[in-house]
């Protein structure tokens, strides 16, 4: 599914003394079967934009087009009903997503209310957990009593269970250790390559963005500052610094070697490929 954002604006606490413009004239194109990353520091409007694209918040002006369906600032019940099963949203704070007594009920709620038809619901639920590395023993557990990492994995499992076309992740690495972060990166790439999902990630973690992004938008103070392919964005040290972002470690290494030692090494996504380049140079 292709999503077009056209001059979206959002104002919080309208007509009160605490009124604040969170998003100003956001225009972006999220291509089908691509991983688009919105990278931005704290308070840039990432979570608000994520909730708008996932249809949880109304916009104040502008419109969003999902393939041929246009959504503007009016509540369009018919189109919302069509779009909701196609969009999966994974919360920044996973515990905000849970409201059932057990893990099984959480996944069942999504399958039942989004009219996901399956011959074997129980198998579907177990497979969703297996995909994120949780075993069936979690089915009877209380979601609120799981650890932060387990809650994050569960929220991903719930979203994957009803097979949405678009998966939106808001700060997905926040509660995950290194092992689970690497697992998540592999899972995101699998969703894109094997299952042709459109994936949108909102994060402030440059290293994570570097490993998964096809296209990057830098968001700051509610506006899009710059957009482009990841190497173009990440090589620009000044731009990253101005927007309180850090250069990914692998890019930084290649960048420093080029600028300080005048040795050109390719910019790589994977450390193993970078090590091969260095070895070739040393030889």
């Amino acid at each position: 599914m292709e999503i077009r954002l056209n001059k979206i604006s959002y104002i919080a606490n309208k007509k009160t003394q605490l009124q604040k413009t969170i998003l100003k004239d956001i225009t972006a194109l999220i291509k089908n079967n691509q991983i688009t990353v919105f990278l931005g520091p704290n308070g840039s409007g990432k979570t608000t934009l994520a909730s708008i694209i996932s249809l949880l918040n109304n916009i104040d002006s502008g419109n969003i087009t999902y393939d041929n369906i246009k959504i503007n600032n009016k509540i369009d019940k018919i189109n919302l009903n069509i779009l909701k099963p196609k969009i999966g949203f994974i919360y920044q704070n996973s515990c905000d997503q849970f409201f059932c007594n057990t893990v099984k009920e959480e996944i069942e709620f999504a399958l039942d209310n989004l009219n996901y038809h399956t011959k074997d619901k129980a198998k579907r639920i177990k497979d969703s957990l297996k995909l994120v590395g949780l075993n069936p023993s979690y089915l009877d557990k209380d979601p609120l009593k799981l650890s932060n990492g387990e809650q994050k994995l569960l929220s991903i499992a719930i979203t994957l269970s009803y097979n949405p076309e678009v998966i939106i992740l808001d700060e997905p690495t926040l509660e995950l250790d290194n092992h689970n972060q690497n697992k998540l990166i592999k899972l995101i790439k699998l969703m894109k390559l094997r299952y042709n999902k459109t994936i949108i990630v909102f994060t402030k973690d440059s290293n994570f963005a570097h490993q998964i992004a096809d296209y990057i938008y830098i968001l700051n103070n509610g506006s899009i500052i710059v957009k482009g392919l990841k190497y173009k964005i990440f090589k620009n040290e000044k731009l990253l610094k101005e927007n309180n972002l850090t250069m990914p470690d692998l890019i930084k290494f290649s960048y420093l070697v080029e600028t300080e030692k005048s040795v050109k090494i390719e910019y790589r996504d994977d450390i193993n490929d970078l090590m091969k380049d260095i070895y070739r140079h040393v030889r």
Partner: protein
Amino acid sequence: MSGNIMIGNYFPAKSNIHNMNPISKIICTILFLLMTIFSFNIEVSGILVLLVMILIMNTSIPLTVYYYILKKLRYIIIIFFVLSSLITFSLIAGLTVGINVVLIILIVSILTLTTPPTEIVYGLEKVLYPLQKCNIKTNTLALNISMALRFIPILIDESDKILKSEASYGVDYHLNIKNKIKAIKTMIKPAIKRTLKKQKEISKSMEVRLFSIYKSRTNYRINKWGFFDTYLIIVHIAILIIIIMRGVIT
């Protein structure tokens, strides 16, 4: 995250009501609640509406804030109106009760919007002090009441989050009446559960900051008693006496 203004949340502003002593604000709130108890007809409710409007004008808080609070609690108001109309077989009586419920919500909102939570605890402790003669731990009671008020916005926030989460799974509260009922039915228990969980976290946070009800505490704000405090209490007492006398005579 939602930034909503709620009953129980302090709204900073510069106004006569904000500058009042918390003790006088609590006394006025109690007097007003007594007035609503004694208001049996719509004319008296009209006088109370006028009083509340004057108080609201003196808070320098936008009317949209109060409108938003009433909008959030509209179902409670409707339930009271319907139940009292059915019990008394009178729409006028139902309307009087409905208006009184609105007034109670507004007067408590005025108190919580214009008084920081710590000041409410201070005010309650002082107002409830005479109860210590009856061996009642007024400082604990004051803290419990203040925490109860503080948890209303937390409960509403958690309910909002759950409704949004349900909406992402196709049960959208705003879509139709069937979805509304399903959303509310599924929301009540987890909202209370999550609020209680937050309550435990807040208690731990207070403990970490060495808060203890068994130790004497000082108040860093200087709460002066001004002319406006005395004036407003006298006005409230006068209106209450008039309402009671009117009830006795008629």
